Every structure is written in structure tokens, then in C-alpha cells.
């Protein structure tokens, strides 16, 4: 079936397709790992579909993109420094089967030695059935964050940007950032940070998110002006909303360009009403994230997150012996369903919050998070209750038979 005009052509039919911000009765054609234009296929290449996939009336959408996930299946990207490749490997494959076709492995605040050991292994890597979901680059959360808003991060690792770019170089290595990082989370009010943000962006090309911060709205606004384009887990680990100084949260009401915001929709990290308020304030900015940690998909028990012990208990995760939420164990597919329920958002808006918006935040919306011609063929088929039925990465179907991964424990 492969020929001078390219490889096997697959057609998804009997489906509604997420296209141009609508669900439309249409087909999706895939060839050589990309979504192709059927008119060009028909008139220029003179080809018809070789393989046809009956979607049984379901929804065809881009694969989900998770830009904040610390680990899963027992693995942790900050802690499993000796087996980091094994961690990335198994998490990539496990996530793929859940419908997440691309993600940013996230590190919590760590010492420079840890970054030196793991960052080079968390860099961009194409998705495939053999290797799992695409790695979009690391999300480096901390250690340039506020000690008052460190959440589950370890205090001793935190630092300031008083040294400017040199501080980042010393902590991560600027080259390492450039090659492997998708974005970094910082607190705008940390010493030296407001000056450093634009210089960091210019030097490395990575994106900057505000999070784990007590910043005032004025400081947050300045960070935005300096190039910050994302808020990390809105509401969590930041100054609560105050009517006269809404802090980082206030950026949702800013004039002009407003940032994207990650938001955890497990119903635990953020009250459903708060999710609704954020969505109504800035629907186009919502990026659903799991912030999942190693215990995701593992049974109840005690596990390690970064350099701390946490307690997994029936869907909730706390730092052992405290009431501080350590992370989540939800899947992105569940987040999408919850988000739709919490906010009343349409199916299109709920799906776009886990596909288009994360891709836009990372500046890759021409090839990810969309079903446009030329985009990567990372596709999920869902039923109308938004349960993921089938997953395709780079045009090939990922199933339990051909994607084999293991839990660390």
C-alpha cells in the first residue's frame, strides 16, 4: 500500500471531529504520522484511504497534553535520578494508554546535582507506540519560588535570582535549559526575579510561568510584562484572591494579553466553584493539568515525592503527617470530564483545555493539540461521556498489546 506518494493512508470515519472550535461530521486522514488534507490526497496523490477506522459515532479529538506531571506508576522525575530513563520510558507509555499523547515531565525544587543528573533525560523526544507519549521538554518547577508558598517542595532547596542569569546557570545550566526545558515556574517576587525573567527568556527561549508565589498583583503584572505567559496550578501555592490585591490570580482580570493558567480539576486541589470562576473569567486560558505524582495509578500507600514522604489515600495525597496536599493522582481524561461538569463548558471547550490551550501555551499549536492538516497524528477517540476509547500516537494505534510498561513498585 505504500508507494511513491507516501505510506499507508488511514481514514477515521463515522465520527464527529473537533475542528475549528466545533464538533463537525467529518473524516480525519492520517499518513506517515501526520494529518493530511484529503483533497490533496485525492486530486494530487490520486490516493484513497487504505485503512478505515470506524469510530462508532464517537468524538475524534487531538491527544491530550499534560504540562504538569511529576511522575506516575511509582516513578518520580525528581527522585528517580539513577533510573531516570526507565522512569521517562514507563511514564510515557502508561500516560499514552490513558489518552495523553504528549507531556512535560515536571521536576520539583531540587538541588543542582539533581538537575545535572536528570534534565538531559527529560528533553524533547518524539512520541511513538514503541516509546510512548511525546516528551515536550521538562517543566522545571522551582527552586526559584517563595518559601511561604513552597507547598510540598523542600525549603532547603529554594533559592533567589539575586545573581541574575548566573543564578539560573548555576542551578540548572543554561545550555541544559535551552536544550531540555519547555518552561520553568518561578515566583515573581523572589529577589532579582522580575529583572531576570526577560533575560532568561532571551537567553534560553524557554517559557516562564508564575507559581508558588506570594506576589502582589503589581509584581505579577510586571512578570507578565517581562514575558511570563503561564500561571502554574492557579489557586494552589499562591496568595489567595483578595479584592484589593488579587495577586497572581488577578492576572486573569488583567488588561491586554492574559496568561494561560494550569488548573487541577480533581475537585480536591481547587473547589469546583473556583474552577468555574476562573473559567468564566478567562475561558481561553484554561490548561488542564494533573500535577500527578508517582502514586498516580498506584494503590493506597506511602511513596516518595522529591525528597519527601507522602501518603496516598483514596484519591488524595498529603505530605505524611500534615494536611498539605502533596500532589494529585488524577488522570488528564478525568480532569477533562470534571472540568466540563464543574464549569458547564461545552465539550469543545473542555477538550480544547487539554489540547489546544496547552499547545498554544508552549507555542506548538501548529503541530500539536489540533487536528489541522500537517499536525502530528496524535489522536484520541472518545465516547460522548468523554471516556477515551482509542489512542493513536504519530498515526499508530496504542493498545495494551503493543504498549508495554511497568509500575516501579
Amino acid at each position, binding site marked *: 500500500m505504500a508507494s511513491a506518494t507516501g505510506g499507508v493512508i488511514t481514514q477515521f470515519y463515522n465520527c464527529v471531529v473537533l475542528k475549528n472550535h466545533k464538533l463537525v461530521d467529518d473524516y480525519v486522514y492520517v499518513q506517515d504520522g501526520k494529518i493530511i488534507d484529503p483533497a490533496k490526497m485525492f486530486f494530487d496523490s490520486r490516493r*484513497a484511504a487504505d485503512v478505515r477506522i470506524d469510530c462508532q459515532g464517537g468524538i475524534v479529538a487531538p491527544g491530550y497534553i499534560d504540562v504538569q506531571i511529576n511522575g506516575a506508576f511509582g516513578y518520580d522525575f525528581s527522585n528517580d535520578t539513577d533510573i531516570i530513563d526507565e522512569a521517562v520510558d514507563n511514564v510515557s507509555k502508561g500516560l499514552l494508554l490513558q489518552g495523553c499523547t504528549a507531556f512535560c515531565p515536571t521536576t520539583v525544587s531540587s538541588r543542582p546535582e539533581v538537575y545535572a543528573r536528570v534534565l538531559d533525560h527529560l528533553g524533547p523526544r518524539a512520541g511513538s507506540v514503541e516509546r510512548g507519549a511525546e516528551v515536550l521538554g521538562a517543566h522545571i518547577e522551582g527552586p526559584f519560588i517563595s518559601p511561604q508558598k513552597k507547598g510540598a517542595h523542600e525549603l532547603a532547596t529554594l533559592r533567589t535570582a539575586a545573581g541574575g542569569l548566573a543564578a539560573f546557570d548555576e542551578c540548572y545550566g543554561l545550555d541544559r535549559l535551552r536544550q531540555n526545558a519547555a518552561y520553568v515556574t518561578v515566583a515573581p517576587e523572589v529577589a532579582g526575579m522580575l529583572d531576570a525573567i526577560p533575560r532568561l527568556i532571551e537567553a534560553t527561549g524557554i517559557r516562564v510561568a508564575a507559581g508558588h508565589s506570594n506576589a502582589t498583583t503589581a509584581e505579577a503584572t510586571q512578570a507578565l510584562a517581562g514575558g511570563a505567559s503561564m500561571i502554574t496550578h492557579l489557586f494552589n501555592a499562591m496568595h489567595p484572591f483578595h479584592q484589593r490585591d488579587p495577586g497572581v490570580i488577578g492576572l486573569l482580570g488583567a488588561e491586554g494579553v492574559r496568561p494561560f493558567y494550569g488548573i487541577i480539576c480533581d475537585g480536591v486541589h481547587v473547589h469546583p466553584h473556583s474552577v468555574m470562576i476562573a473559567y468564566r473569567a478567562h475561558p481561553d486560558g484554561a490548561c488542564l493539568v494533573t500535577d500527578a505524582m508517582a502514586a498516580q495509578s498506584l494503590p493506597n500507600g506511602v511513596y516518595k515525592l522529591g525528597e519527601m514522604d507522602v501518603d496516598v489515600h483514596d484519591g488524595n495525597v498529603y505530605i505524611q503527617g500534615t494536611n498539605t496536599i502533596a500532589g494529585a493522582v488524577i488522570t488528564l481524561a478525568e480532569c477533562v470530564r470534571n472540568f466540563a461538569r464543574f464549569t458547564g463548558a461545552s465539550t469543545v471547550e473542555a477538550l480544547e483545555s487539554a489540547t489546544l490551550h496547552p499547545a498554544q501555551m508552549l507555542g506548538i499549536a501548529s503541530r500539536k493539540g489540533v487536528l489541522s492538516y500537517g499536525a502530528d497524528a496524535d489522536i484520541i477517540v472518545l465516547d460522548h461521556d468523554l471516556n477515551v476509547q482509542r489512542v493513536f500516537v504519530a498515526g499508530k494505534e496504542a493498545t495494551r498489546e503493543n504498549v508495554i510498561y511497568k509500575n516501579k513498585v
Partner: protein
Amino acid sequence: MRLIIRDDPKAVAYYTANYVRQRINEFKPTRKRPFVLGLPTGSTPVEVYWHLVDYYKRGEVSFRHVITFSMDEYVGLPRSHPESYCAFMHRHLYDHINLRPENVHMLDGNADDLAAECQRYEDKIKEVGGIELFLGGIGPDGHIAFNEPGSSLESVTRVKTLAYETVLANARFFGGDVNKVPKLALTVGVGTVRAAREVLLIITGAHKAVALAKCIEEGVNHMWTVSVVQLHPSAMIVCDEDATLELHVKTVRYFKSIEQVQEQLIGRQHIGLKGSISKLASSDPADSFGSGVLPPAAATASKD
């Protein structure tokens, strides 16, 4: 010619699609003997195509051995433009059925040598054995394809400058801006349509009424190019009531009565798809049909 009058455009589209389906199935096309179909664009054909797609999806017709030729295409419009006829045909028909890409022939409005492209098209039609059934509509000025008033009735596939009225009519597809409508098009000729073994015209709407009247009640005339159907041995027009508004009452009654006569005196089962009559019906099994005596009215049953 046959004039089939139905209540509204929906019924017209259904009749036409059903007819095309039956024609293809009766023909039993094969790789060596394909069914060659000429196809138009336009709003009424859209509904015909919808029905054909539906028949295909239900397994009631296959396009595997059907070859298609489109009537026309704008010059200079990129194929990817949503208003190009390639995009139209793909969107409404080709993308949904099992027509093989190599069996689909469209005029290339972006060819370097337009005259050579037109010749290639004519040659291709001959190569596949000529067109078995040419579907078409008419413009308000009575043109078929883009054979505007003044086109030779023997014309072949060629480049045509569009009449002002046509440009105006098409502006609605280009955001209402007449300046965006292409002014040149490649079109099959009147002669090309005449050469088809059967012609089926779909004509709906009051705005087509004058053209329909000119084309079937008056003479064959190059100002109303569709009038050539009067000279075609196998022509059919399917129209709605609104399109008959300018016809004489006598004309409309005549064509409606033909269908009634066929039902009552001949019976559907004895009438071939293209109107041939195998024998006459008889409600009384002991009737004198066997004796060779025919009821007077049935003597004029042939209408070609």
C-alpha cells in the same frame, strides 16, 4: 424529451438521485465497461449528492466502476480554495463514496496551456467511451455549464468569459464581492453535452422559470443554450413546480398527464428506466389485449 415535475427541490433531488442510482445499477458497470457520469456543481446538485452518498453508505449503489467528468472549473482559482469546483465536488461527493481517484476527471483551471487542457479533457472523454449520462443544471440565462448566451451549439470544451449575470449570481460564494469571483472558466461545450448518450437537467426555483420556458417552448437558440436538449434523443428535465411558472398551462398539463397515463395504462413494471415500454398493462386478466386491440389513448404512449 421527458419533463418530470415534482413539488419542490427536495423531491426533485430525490427523484434525480434515485434515477442515477437505478441507472448505474441497471448498467452493471465493470472495469472494462465503466459507467461514465458527467457531474455539475450548484445548490440543487448538493442535495442530489447527499442522497447518492446515503445510497452508497447503505450499500445500495457502488461507484467503484464509475468514471466522472465535471462540467466546468474556474480559471486561476487554486484547487485548495473552498469555492473551486474541485473542492466543492470533494466536499459534497468524492470524500464520501468509493469513487476511485484515478476515475475522477476535473478540468484544471491552473494548467499552463488552457487550450491543451481542454483538448486533453475531450480526448479523455472519447478514450473512456463517451459519457453515458450527463447531469446538469441551467443558469437563469439558460446556460448549461458555462456555455453563456452566444455560445456555439456545437462548441467543445474551452475557456469562456463569464457573463455578468453569472458573476453576480456566484458572488454569494465569494463573500458577496463580485471582484473576487473569477471571470474566466473552463467549460465543456454545448456539443460535449449533446454527445452524451443521455442528458438529465435539474431545474428548480422560480428564477429559472423564464429560462426553462425559453428552452423548451421556443426554438433552439444560442442565446438559451440549454434549448439544444430539444435535439437530443434521450433528454430528461426534472423540475419543481416553481420552475414551471412561465410555461404554458397546456405544456405543464401535458407532461404531467404522461406520467399519469403511464401509471394507469401501462404500469410501472412495464416501463424501462429510460422510458421504453415493453407491453401494456391490463387490469382485467380476461381483457382483449391478447387479441391485439389497444385502447385509443395508449397509442400515443411513446413520448420521445
